[in-house]
């Protein structure tokens, strides 16, 4: 590619401290640009705005817990999409897979809550959520494996089906038509200490498991090979169809768990907006972390920090939420941009005689 005599080439890998330095510069640059924008648009002191962001995330015990809970849920969904993405299966359906897991969970609470003993109920809830998540993920996987359908469109469409199913069942559950289902807290997952502790522990364990699965097992290796090149995979005797379907079973199961934590562990009710776009944000978390589950802890924290911080800015300064979105956008733009420049560089072409 060449534009105005400039030219993009792949970089030699740089040392880790150099990489970190570039990232730090990018974040500082984004903060400076945001500060300029804030000052121009609102006449507020940008330092106060940044202080308010920190206050919104770390300002009290409640805010720290809330941040940890948000990180846990976002990380859980990110863990779910990662195996599929590593295999270059563009699963854009986490939103629907989580929601359908939540719907299964809420249905169990609704119909079996007063019929089963509590421990049995919890087991049925877990099984139902995981099964629903798997079904929602494996349908596009089967179509992809057998008929090579486009998985991006297919998984996206499945989101809408899931949302409409939730709307349909809400109408059925809630006879007065308000679409708001009263939380069934008595049937929720057990509370260990603080109400978010179970969610956080579950996701921490999942992070380790997914890390081991991707880096240390034969199946994880097969995912990488299929992702690098399907032909190579076939050549060395990997059953690609089987790997696609198996990986999406894993992906869907983790989405089901996310649905379980969101509904059974947190809200005890469901609405069409329960997942709140996190099925898509998770894609960014996973990409930014280069599909490494441990890095994903940091990237999901980054996203939650920006969101919670931006909300606090809106509250403290009575700014329209668009201003917070602009700050978040600028910071993410720099971070994603710097990842690009860590891998590529721009050089001036020498009168069209460049190679590379």
């Amino acid at each position, binding site marked *: 590619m060449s534009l105005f005599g400039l030219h993009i080439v792949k970089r030699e890998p740089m040392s880790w401290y150099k990489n970190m330095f570039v990232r730090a510069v990018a974040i500082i640059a984004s903060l400076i640009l945001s500060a300029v924008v804030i000052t121009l648009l609102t006449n507020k002191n940008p330092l106060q705005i940044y202080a308010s962001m920190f206050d919104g995330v770390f300002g009290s015990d409640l*805010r720290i817990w809330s941040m940890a809970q948000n990180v846990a849920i976002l990380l859980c969904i990110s863990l779910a999409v990662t195996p599929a993405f590593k295999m270059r299966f563009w699963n854009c359906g986490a939103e629907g897979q989580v929601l359908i897991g939540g719907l299964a969970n809420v249905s169990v609470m609704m119909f079996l809550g007063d019929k089963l003993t509590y421990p049995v109920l919890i087991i049925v809830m877990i099984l139902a959520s995981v099964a629903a998540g798997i079904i929602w993920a494996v349908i596009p996987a089967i179509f992809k494996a057998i008929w090579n359908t486009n998985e991006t469109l297919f998984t996206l469409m499945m989101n809408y089906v899931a949302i409409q199913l939730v709307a349909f069942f809400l*109408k059925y559950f809630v006879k007065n038509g308000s679409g*708001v289902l009263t939380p069934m807290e008595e049937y929720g997952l057990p509370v260990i200490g603080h109400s978010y502790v179970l969610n956080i522990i579950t996701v921490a364990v999942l992070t380790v498991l997914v890390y081991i699965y991707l880096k240390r097992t034969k199946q994880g290796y097969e995912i990488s090979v299929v992702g690098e090149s399907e032909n190579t995979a076939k050549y060395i005797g990997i059953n690609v169809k089987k790997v696609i379907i198996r990986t999406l079973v894993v992906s869907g199961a983790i989405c089901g768990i996310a649905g379980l934590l969101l509904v059974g562990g947190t809200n005890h009710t469901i609405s069409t907006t329960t997942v709140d776009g996190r099925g898509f944000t998770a894609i960014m978390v996973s990409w930014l972390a280069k599909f490494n589950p441990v890095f994903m802890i940091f990237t999901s924290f980054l996203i939650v920090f920006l969101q919670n911080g931006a909300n606090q800015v809106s509250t403290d300064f009575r700014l329209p939420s668009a201003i917070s979105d602009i700050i978040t956008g600028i910071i993410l733009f720099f971070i994603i941009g710097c990842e690009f420049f860590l891998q590529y560089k721009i050089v001036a072409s020498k009168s069209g005689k460049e190679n590379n």
Partner: protein
Amino acid sequence: MKKILALVLSAILVLGMFVGCGSDSNEVDVPEIKGMSKSPIDTVELTVDYEVPGTFKIGFICLHDENSTYDLNFLNAVDTIQKTLKLSDSQVIVKTNVPEGDECYVAAKDLVDSGCNIIFANSFGHEDFMIKAAKEFPDVQFCHATGTKAHTENLKNYHNAFASIYEGRYLAGVAAGMKLNEMIADGKFTAEEAKIGYVGAFTYAEVISGYTSFYLGAKSVCPTVTMDVQFTGSWYDAPKEKNAAEALIAKGCKLISQHADSMGAPGACEKAGIPNVSYNGSTYDSCYETFIISSAINWAPYYNYIIGSYVKGEEIAADWCGGIAEGSVVLTGINQDVAAEGTFDAIKKAVEDIKNGTIKVFATKNFTVEGKELTTYLADVDTDAAFTPDTEVIADGYFHESEYRSAPCFDLRIDGITLLNQEF
């Protein structure tokens, strides 16, 4: 080289568009614009008979932000009360975009941490999470708009509020009926073709009460009017509301109104040149060719009531329903370029009749259900898991809306109104 050329060309194009726009607007002949009248309902000034201490704090939880007409209406009232009581910014904390889930509970707790004495939430789905917080913090007052559970929860610090907005809808309906009459008189369509389209959120009492009173207002001046209702299954979804309005217009609706919170329906009307009666506030600025009038709830009187009660150490009522007299039910001005001649006076008269009791919006003689006038009806006033009807609401010849609880409970499907989809 090609790329540079393309860039230059596109730059010229973009510039051309700006220049084009500029000269276009200069050439258009500006017809005489009569603009907005004042509101047919006289403004009710807030009476403040108390002094707010500097330590007092109030927190607000809103489902969306100022982009939703519903939330904007609450936020405007926050500004009004803050100015009236001269509260500092640190005494009024506003949290926007709070979903109807655990996030609402967290937001309420965060407001308690910040030292709020009263916490107010504005969306129906916030209710259960507000109740949860209310049980945990008995010293803080929790007030919730549109909820239904305060009178059965029996918590001293949890309260519901609404307004008799069905009266405002009825008055806006009068404006709609008069516009239809004008279009019939102009020979645009026959009296039998006079059909209103209505974009509703859910098949829930709040919406049903709203479109029925609106319809009855229109029918009071245009007896042949019928109405089609299309539901969106969402309180706030601009594309869905736009599509629903367009579908209704395509089905032959001559005037549109809505109970949904985005600019979707008013925008679609402006594009199609179909008159629109709005809700939650004026949409005149972006829809001045089709906007007629809007009814809205003014929340400032309720804010004044709860802050006053708290400061004076009085109990806040479990249910509070403001009307025209309290200044809770308001109308915007009338767009005199769209509304029919005489609309202002007709509404002004109806306001007087509602105030002195001559007009009961839900008088049983005004409507039929499956061809019959009603003499008895059990409504679901006390919310329970099975939604069983529990309270007789018809007495003295009218349906007693918002009397046994502040939130509407009128959920009858009356004749003349067709529900196009009931899935929601």
